[in-house]
């Protein structure tokens, strides 16, 4: 009896070893808020909450595994993962399934798989690997190579067409390039160039993509079409007020005025029912999570782990900002889930794998010198 207690404790310690308390707490709090909101959003389909809980279990397992893989090992997978992702994207372009007019899915045995999702992690890994290899001799040319490595998957995803994911993958890559130390002058020059290329880019967009952007400027123009989402979600947020209408009491939600209320527009449900106070709590949780991530990046041991940690952390920010901005009507409607809150197994798994990587980076951090 005396022996059993310490061994159980040791087993527990072995189990939680390498799990970062603050990160786990923050992400679980967000996931819990997500389940509560999902319960309200899917009152007519209670099965969804259970299925999201199952997704969460799988995602936590993914996090647990990733937290145990040292960054050095992860680095070895960077190139194969990138090449594999590119191969899959090409396969999708040639033989993918078309769902809602876009070619995004690939059949793998019995299930379908969205290779662009994988790129959200594979691209930053690849770029971080590349910069790490050339750390000692980083020159402008290396940033050029990185830009090419970034452009290839982004263009493949953009022509599926899936502009939302393309922007996210591009952002993940750009963060790595930024943290690798690209000069401010280059950034400024690229910024000017980017603004100048808006005009030709506009011509390349699909009609529905253009309409989404135009609708942002004037949603009332197309109340039954593209503007419907924005109008209804803005009403939901605005009518929530300071304290919200209360859990399960959102009229916009329960009268089915909010489209895609389980997935991309779940924030409208949250905001309607929990109000400005709820939003503030959500923003605070995200801020703390991001702060923790940036701290881990700042104390990471190697160039590679630094870049990957910072990039993943800013990805959380990007998801959250783009999604909430879209629901609040200040960004165009693109298919971006609200991290840890939106319904969907693949996105949740990607997010927790990211958390796992952060934990792993933290476990192998630079020891503070005295």
């Amino acid at each position, binding site marked *: 009896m005396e022996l059993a207690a310490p061994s159980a404790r040791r087993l527990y310690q072995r189990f939680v070893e390498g799990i970062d308390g603050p990160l786990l707490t923050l992400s679980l709090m967000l996931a819990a808020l997500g389940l509560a909101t999902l319960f309200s959003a899917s009152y007519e389909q209670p099965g969804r909450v259970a299925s999201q809980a199952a997704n969460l279990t799988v995602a936590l397992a993914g996090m647990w595994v990733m937290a145990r893989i040292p960054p050095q090992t992860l680095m070895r997978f960077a190139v194969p993962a990138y090449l594999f992702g590119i191969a899959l994207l090409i396969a999708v372009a040639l033989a993918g399934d078309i769902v809602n007019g876009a070619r995004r899915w690939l059949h793998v045995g019995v299930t379908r798989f969205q290779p662009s999702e994988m790129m959200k992690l594979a691209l930053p890994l690849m770029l971080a690997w590349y910069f790490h290899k050339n750390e000692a001799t980083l020159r402008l040319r290396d940033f050029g190579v990185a830009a090419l490595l970034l452009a290839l998957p982004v263009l493949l995803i953009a022509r599926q067409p899936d502009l939302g994911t393309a922007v996210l993958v591009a952002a993940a890559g750009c963060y790595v390039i930024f943290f690798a130390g690209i000069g401010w002058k280059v950034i400024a020059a690229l910024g000017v160039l980017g603004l100048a290329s808006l005009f030709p880019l506009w011509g390349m967009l699909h009609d529905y993509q253009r309409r989404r952007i135009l609708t942002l400027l004037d949603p009332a123009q197309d109340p039954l079409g593209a503007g419907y989402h924005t109008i209804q979600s803005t009403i939901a947020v605005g009518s929530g007020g300071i304290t919200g209408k209360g859990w399960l009491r959102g009229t916009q939600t329960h009268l089915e005025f909010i489209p895609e209320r389980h997935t991309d527009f779940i924030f409208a449900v949250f905001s309607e029912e929990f109000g400005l106070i709820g*939003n503030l709590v959500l923003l605070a949780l995200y801020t703390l999570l991001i702060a923790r991530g940036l701290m881990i990046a700042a104390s990471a041991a190697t160039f590679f782990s630094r870049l990957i940690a910072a990039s993943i952390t800013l990805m959380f920010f990007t998801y959250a900002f783009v999604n909430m901005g879209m629901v609040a009507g200040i960004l165009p409607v693109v298919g971006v889930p609200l991290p840890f809150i939106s319904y969907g197994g693949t996105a949740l798994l990607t997010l927790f794998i990211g958390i796992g990587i952060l934990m792993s980076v933290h476990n192998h951090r630079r020891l503070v010198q005295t």
Partner: protein
Amino acid sequence: MKLGEFKNHERELYFFQLRIGFAGFAVLAAFVLLFARFFHLQVVQHDTYASKAEDNRISIVPIAPNRGLILDRNGVVLARNYSAYTLEIFPAKVRDLERTIQDLSEVVEVQAKDRSRFRKLHAEIRNAESLPIRTRLTDEEVARFAANRYRFPGVEIKARLFRQYPYGDLAAHVIGYIGRINAKDQEKLAELEVEANYRGTDYIGKSGLEASYQQELHGTTGFEQVEIDAAGRGIRTLARTPAQAGNNVTLTLDIKLQEVAEKVFAGRRGALVAIEPSTGGVLAFVSMPGFDPNLFVDGIDPASWAELNNSPDRPLTNRAIAGIYPPGSTFKPYMAMAALELGKRTQKSAIHDPGYFEFGGRRFRDSKAGGHGYVDLYKSIVVSSDTFYYQLANDMGIDAIAGFMGKFGFGAKSGIDLEGEAIGVLPSPEWKLKRFRRPEQQKWYAGETVSIGIGQGYNAYTPIQLAVALATLAADGAMYRPRLVSYIDNLRSGERRHIEPELLTRIPLKPENLEFVKRAMAGVNKEGTGARSFGTAPYSSGGKTGTAQVIGMKQGEKYDEKRVSERHRDHSLYIVFAPLESPKIALFAIVENGGFGARAAAPIARTVLDYYLLGKDPEAVVEPAAAAKRGSGATAAEEEAESD
């Protein structure tokens, strides 16, 4: 050195941490911006949005418009709507679909067919609001379900309009059918920017005129403002903008004539297109076999679909616009016309036909062993001499032939108001260059030109092209776009919009040449290969028989119908226009594997023309089967006909 590297490292780390700080600042700034927006919406403008949310108790419900009717030229309804009750499942509100369907089958009859159709619809249309499990409920079933309604949340009875095609498979390829809007249709609607007008509409034209005139037939969706309670149920209607029914579409087609034409095919495969030469209006449009479009309206069940789709007779293919066939000897009048216009032959040109044409050491055989002897241009059409046209094609050269035939619309889409038209092949060196990959295949050989002259070789055209070419010849070179629709009625405004005949081109042809070719085609029907069917016709007409080879014959091998399997027998073709002066109808008919043109296709043409020009009951005409049987005791003239 070492120290420098270390310092460098330190410096790098410092810059990295600087950027981390910058990023943290940017994140904060962005979140402050978001918070400002939330504050603006939720505090500053809260009242506005709160009242908007309150007003959202008013739901806008779309009212689907009634689909326009399709009528034949005499006002006979070919596609109509009727109202019936359907039992619909809202998949999003049902927990266990299989169980619900199982329970439903205890209340109303649910057959295996209904289940498999529902499953198919459920798989195809992912985000459908509701899907029918049963259509056309009887009053008793409606009553029984109403009594058990409490057991089935997420299942509702709806009154819906259904499309019905009263004539079944008659003219099915013309009328087409409607079906549920799927993802692909949705995308098309988005492209046309008419999505909003399709809210509340579940069906869309999928083929035939139902598809090509979809925008006319659909109408304008209406809206109803309904006040709803907290549970989202409608309490009362506040305002209503009624839907505007779609336009009625009236065809140039005569359904009686169509019926006569389809009946006389008597189950054989083939196609027939009859056109009014002076307008391009299509009078009859047959593709056999057909199918029953009513099967598709509720979503076709997989078993019926498999049967239609896997049938070797390919009933779903619209042969009249998508089938491509060699024209065989029906090509000869155009060849003669080309020869006269281009000065390669005169009306008096004559040859001695020994029964073959020799070129490059190869013998091109005439279908009549021993040949036709002395053959001039007139006789070459009347008896259908192959030798004459082998020689002519060789003299003209492929470029001249392709150039001339292109004007008659051979090898180009006719522009008929149906979707899915095939292009066919107007052979030319340019076409071959594009069609083939290997250099030795890309080269045009002079020997290949020879059989082009008798409508064989690479020649391949759709029935609609062959009918339009004939109508153009009959109208002295005036080519009209073929069309099935005569006018469109807007019931609301009472406005009638006529589709005016569209003159595509007027081919300049010399009157004496036209007169000659038409006279020769009249000769075909009076004393030549078409005489058996048209010799006794009380009206004047010009025709030409055609026999198109399905399989290639080796040199010296003789075609023996009995030795060739049914699917490999020759196609039987016939073109005819009547009356000779100012023709009222130009017709092309093909019977797949029907053998000689004079035997299978010509009697069909005669029956259709008799009905159209004389109003004659088809029963009185010689049955095509009977005509074929007489083959053994054929007269000399008929023997000639057989040797087409």
